[in-house]
């Protein structure tokens, strides 16, 4: 598969939070030949199963790893129809400052192209001079007669930016919705590599819905699928002028691996070890508390799921020019593959926390397993 072309297809498709079906179909098409079965979860997430070579244990259970990237993108939703124009509300954390002048697509009874407009600068009141337009100040201009707009668009219809992916050269790719389709592409790359690599564990690849509105898809799928371990994939901040912090990473510098309360330390070490087998050094992404990703809710599903977070750095996050290095996507896929193919049936005991001295029974129980 041409990863770049796959990514282009993914980011140019539309799927704002809660309206992911169109992008879900594109992912389904890409994953379908690579997996044993596919299903769509009750909240719309796409779940693919690729079975490993393990034999069922005596109680019929199988070891399963969940890979999770979200397929939704930030967008807007129609709040009010005013003749030719629409007023909008946020769908996820969209940045109103980047919107004026952008082409959008209104997903009405049929797709309607629009343009984000603002009132002319000279007509602004003095307090609004010299500042960015707020979301409430924006108009989606449809250039259609009001009766046509009324027939095509309803309050509640979603709106997404409509711009193609382009290449900056040297593997840098620019588009909307790299957050988090770049990570969906990394999972695709992994699933493709697993075609020719033996792996014992079952792989549950999840393209989750509604991350941008609060990781809602990942939460229910972690509960539903009940994996033994999980790796969430999301984007992180790429190095660029004017952006600083320990969570800012170089583009093309390998996918950062997160370390902090949200992540199982032994799982972190095991993924790090897998990357070292590939002679890749993953930058550490320190995240002491809330990761702001699907990993946060996966970790606390049911009685708790050992979780990790693999990141792909992008510049200009939450804009229409999210910029990613294709190498980071390829390498994230390879790290996942290497980790999965290295998973032994007893991996869970290898990552267990310190044993409580009084829990003699449970220790014996584990011996039986081995």
């Amino acid at each position, binding site marked *: 598969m041409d990863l770049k072309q796959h990514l282009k297809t993914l980011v140019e498709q539309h799927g704002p939070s809660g309206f992911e079906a169109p992008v879900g179909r594109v992912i389904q098409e890409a994953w379908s030949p690579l997996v044993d079965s596919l299903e769509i979860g009750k909240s719309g997430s796409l779940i693919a199963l690729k079975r490993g070579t393990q034999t069922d244990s005596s109680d019929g259970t199988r070891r399963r790893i969940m890979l999770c990237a979200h397929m939704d993108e930030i967008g807007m939703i129609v709040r009010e129809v005013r003749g030719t124009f629409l007023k909008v509300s946020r769908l996820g954390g969209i940045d109103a400052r980047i919107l004026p*002048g952008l082409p959008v697509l209104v997903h009405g009874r049929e797709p309607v192209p629009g343009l984000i407009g603002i009132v002319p600068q000279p007509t602004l009141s003095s307090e609004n001079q010299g500042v960015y337009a707020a979301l409430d100040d924006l108009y989606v*201009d449809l250039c259609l007669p009001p009766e046509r707009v009324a027939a095509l668009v309803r309050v509640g219809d979603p709106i997404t930016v409509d711009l193609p992916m382009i290449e900056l050269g040297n593997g840098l790719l620019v588009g909307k919705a790299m957050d988090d389709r770049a990570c969906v592409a990394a999972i695709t790359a992994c699933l493709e590599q697993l075609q020719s690599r033996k792996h014992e564990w079952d792989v549950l690849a999840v393209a989750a819905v509604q991350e941008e509105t609060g990781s809602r898809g990942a939460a229910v799928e972690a509960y539903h699928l009940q994996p033994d371990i999980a790796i969430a994939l999301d984007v992180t901040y790429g190095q660029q002028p004017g952006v600083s912090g320990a969570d800012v990473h170089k583009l093309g510098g390998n996918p950062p691996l997160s370390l902090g309360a949200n992540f199982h330390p032994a799982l972190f070490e095991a993924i790090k070890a897998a990357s070292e087998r590939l002679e890749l050094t993953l930058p550490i992404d320190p995240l002491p508390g809330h990761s702001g990703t699907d990993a946060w809710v996966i970790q606390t599903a049911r009685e708790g799921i050992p979780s990790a977070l693999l990141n792909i750095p992008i510049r200009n996050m939450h804009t*229409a020019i999210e910029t990613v290095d294709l190498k980071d996507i390829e390498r994230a896929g390879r790290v996942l593959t290497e980790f999965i193919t290295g998973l032994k049936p007893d991996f869970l005991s290898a990552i267990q926390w310190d044993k409580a001295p009084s829990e003699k029974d449970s220790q014996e129980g584990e011996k039986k397993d081995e």
Partner: protein
Amino acid sequence: MNETLQTRLKSLSEAVGVSGDESEVRKLILEQIKDQVSSVIIDAMGSITARKAGTSPTPLRLMIAAHMDEIGFMITGCDSGIAQVMGIGDHDARFSAAKRVSVGSGKTPGMLLWAPIHKSYGQKSLPEPDDMTIDLGAGSAAVGDRAAYQGQFAVMGEHTLRGKALESRAPCAVLIDLLLGDALPVDLLPAFTVQHHIGARGARTAAYRLRPDAAIVLRAVECNDLPPEGDRDSSERAARFPLIRLGGGPALVASEAPYVTHRNLFRLTRELAQQAGIPYQIDALNLSHRTEGEVISATAAGIPTITIGIPVRYSSSPNGLVDVRDLEHTAALLRVLGARLTAESLQE
């Protein structure tokens, strides 16, 4: 929709011509008009002037000006794919965050970098264009290269075209349309001018060279027809401007303070529009920058000048909007004027 006009405007809109570096637009225009005009001169500034001979035995010489240049940036340095810039022309920085640009004659794609909302939340004040940076990825740029927005030209709805630099290229398209049509009684003296956005400088030399009997400036006027139209008193500032609608017809500009358009020529234009049933609007602009009308009217011993505006929404944006009917009506009005304008009609 008028497909000829659409195709012409698309190629003009997609061409890059930042003030002072208009050659791509100039070449495109020359190619289209060369068989229809004589006396083509590209002056020392880079403006095109020419003549399309009139059918009258003693034709009045009518200059029609439209500027070729657009706002943009100049590269001032480039290190590891990140370029520093200075702004060219009057930017409305509300449109610039995280936009796509084309850099240099090779149109290398670049991105106006934008700190993620997670790291720039609450930052409301607009930056100066000089503080912006462009990500060229693996590309490079030379000091002095110009950068312009990338637009996304498209047909929207039944009559509207979307694209970059329409404030400049829509008037150019109308003027080309006029030149490609039948000869009129008057001598048509087209001037496709440079450096409008940095002080209407090309219009000065072009008007001096032509020294016409009268001049018409074709420009864009910004629409202010976003809702609530009926509630214009809610903003004291908004109420100071006449309402200009997209699709409302060419805007006859009564004044562009401090320049007041030639009274007789203005009246004649309005009467002719009324007689011919061409929809029109009246605008009165209060601008802080120098305009081509102001410059041309005061050239040499003075030239009777009016300004006709084509309504454009979001003229400083990477994507503006024009209504094709406004372009057609503007061309029709110019034809009527070219047929009916006489030396007497200019006199007080």
